[in-house]
């Protein structure tokens, strides 16, 4: 015999009404589970697009380079300053969970073809290491860069679609690149357009150029690189990998830093905040809907049992105990409704995931993704807990009503 036991029994008093309340709670919980799954899917899609789109998990370079300039575009004006990078790369690639560490150079210049010229922002990479890191090159024509470093005179580039259009070139054409060397002088080089690519952002495609690190080094007149982009086998290991590299970076003569992808993609954090806000808003809506519909039901249930509450008070049940009884009934509803909702949400998510629904690509990605709602145990538990809390809140007004009952009046109630 406990109040919780009595409360549970009381749910069977009016089965139709109890089922309705359970349904409301279950639907609320299921909605939260599905939304959480969708939000996780979106975050992971965006995260993957960012990491596999070229940012990698970590970027290792001179600490000064990252001061006050998080994104690669902001560092275009700085010459490549990372020397001795081959040895550093070897050490990094020997670390566990590191797929590869690819050299990277960022630079800017002018591209020209016949009488047309256009400014470009270039990223020079090692295509073989990009492939090992699972990085995608979103080609829109032609072919990707060859993995072998190009021989002198055989340099290749990939152009953003907008840049190619501005220059009036197609894959196979030759263009000239002009850029400032690290000496402060100028140099120019004929290169072959091997393919066209897209970044997912139209504005960037109008300036984007991608080439091999060796080509950039030739053009800039340096053996240095700007940084090493490190790819891991698991994004969740980023923080651990970053910490693991600290002793190695600390032992270098030039201060080096390893910066994680999230720091270098403030856009991701902005999107996360936006989604969190939307999700919180949805949670608020569900909260109010469930509270409004169930508190009315709970109140009706209390009003129908005024005499019974009077009797309980008469035979020695305290005010707090009868109020607790009312709250416990609501908490049982929340628990059972939340559990049902969690199961319902999980079932619906499984069904949806098998439907193969195509979603438009997240910002920064180019290819659509199959919708896959990521339902994790913590989200199920949270939805359940949320429903328990919501129903608890819904029971406050009925509980207060019961506390205020006068015994004699309650006993005389019909």
């Amino acid at each position, binding site marked *: 015999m406990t109040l919780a036991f009595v409360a549970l029994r009381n749910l069977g008093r009016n089965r139709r009404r109890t089922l309705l309340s359970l349904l409301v709670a279950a639907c609320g919980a299921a909605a939260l589970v599905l939304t959480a799954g969708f939000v996780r899917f979106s975050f992971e899609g965006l995260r993957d697009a960012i990491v596999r789109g070229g940012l990698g998990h970590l970027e290792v370079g001179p600490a000064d380079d990252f001061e006050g300039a998080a994104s690669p575009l902001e560092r275009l004006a700085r010459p490549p300053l990372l020397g001795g990078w081959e040895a550093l790369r070897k050490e990094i690639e020997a670390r566990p969970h590191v797929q590869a560490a690819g050299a990277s150079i960022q630079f800017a210049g002018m591209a020209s073809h016949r009488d047309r010229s256009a400014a470009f922002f270039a990223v020079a990479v090692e295509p073989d290491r990009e492939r090992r890191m699972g990085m995608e090159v979103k080609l829109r024509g032609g072919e990707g860069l060859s993995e072998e470093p190009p021989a002198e005179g055989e340099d290749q580039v990939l152009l953003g679609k907008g840049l190619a259009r501005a220059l009036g070139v197609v894959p196979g054409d030759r263009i000239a690149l002009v850029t*400032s060397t690290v000496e402060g002088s100028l140099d*120019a*080089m*004929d290169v072959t357009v091997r393919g066209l690519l897209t970044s997912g952002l139209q504005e960037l495609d109008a300036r984007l150029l991608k080439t091999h690190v060796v080509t950039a080094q030739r053009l800039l007149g340096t053996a240095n690189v700007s940084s090493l982009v490190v790819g891991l086998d698991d994004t969740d290991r980023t923080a651990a990998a970053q910490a693991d590299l600290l002793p190695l970076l600390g032992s270098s003569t030039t201060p080096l830093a390893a910066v994680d992808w999230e720091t270098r993609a403030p856009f991701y954090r902005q999107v996360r905040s936006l989604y969190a806000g939307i999700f919180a808003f949805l949670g608020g809506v569900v909260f109010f809907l469930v509270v409004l519909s169930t508190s009315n039901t709970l109140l009706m249930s209390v009003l129908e049992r005024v005499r019974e509450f009077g009797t309980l008070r008469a035979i020695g049940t305290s005010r707090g105990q009868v109020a607790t009884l009312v709250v416990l009934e609501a908490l049982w509803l929340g628990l059972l409704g939340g559990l049902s909702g969690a199961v319902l949400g999980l079932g619906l998510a499984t069904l949806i995931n098998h439907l193969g629904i195509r979603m438009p690509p997240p910002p920064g990605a180019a290819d659509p993704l199959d919708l896959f709602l990521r339902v994790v145990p913590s989200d199920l538990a949270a939805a359940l807990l949320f429903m328990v809390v919501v129903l608890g809140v819904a029971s406050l007004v009925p509980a207060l009503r019961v506390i205020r009952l006068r015994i004699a009046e309650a006993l005389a109630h019909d």
Partner: protein
Amino acid sequence: MTRAVALALAFASASPALDPWDVLRRGDPGRLSPDSFRALLRLWRDDRSHDIEVWHAGRNRTLVRLLSAKELGKFLLRRDADLWLVSPRTRQPTRLPPAYRLYGGASLDEVLGRLHFEDYEPVDLTEEKGPDGDLLSLRLHARDPGSMLPRARLLVRKGDFRAVKVEYWLRSGKPATVVEFQAWEAGRPRRLAVRDLIRKEGSVTVDVLKLEERPVPADLFDLEDGSARKALPVPLAAAGSP
């Protein structure tokens, strides 16, 4: 006639014996170079030097050969208003912005000296005292209304009209460049320092190692055929330079 009278009235503050046009003609450093010459210049910037060879034929033709070991084979070619980069790694010359600055520090015009007599007209002539003695300050306006540097000031020594300094301003009135003539030899500038006041990237010092007046072959300026350029021998003065 009206112009001469107006100018005479405007320049009442200067010595009545000095004609601004005459000061300009005599003090303009741009007029001191022959019409056609070959020169060897050494540019200093941030404790590093870069040698260049200049072939100049009249106003509209200038070829600059970069002589640093890493840069051999590269040329800057000015024809009329266009500036081109000729690189061994490109089949065709590549057009550059006319305001391109050599080694980030000085434009070709500044290195070679503008022809102020033809590009500018004097609007004011005053005297002032300087560490070099009595100086004449000649304010100039560009004849071309579209000029990037419409305002200038030429400072010359009063005694021999030797140029001390030239200052340039942008259309907005913002100071752009200062060229100081630090050393002279045989009546021509031997060393000058160019300061870029817009980018504030320090100064470039130009040493004129050698200047010989001579005819310049026209095929050096051929955009299509670079064989004459390729055939140029490497000057001894540059051999072994960084």
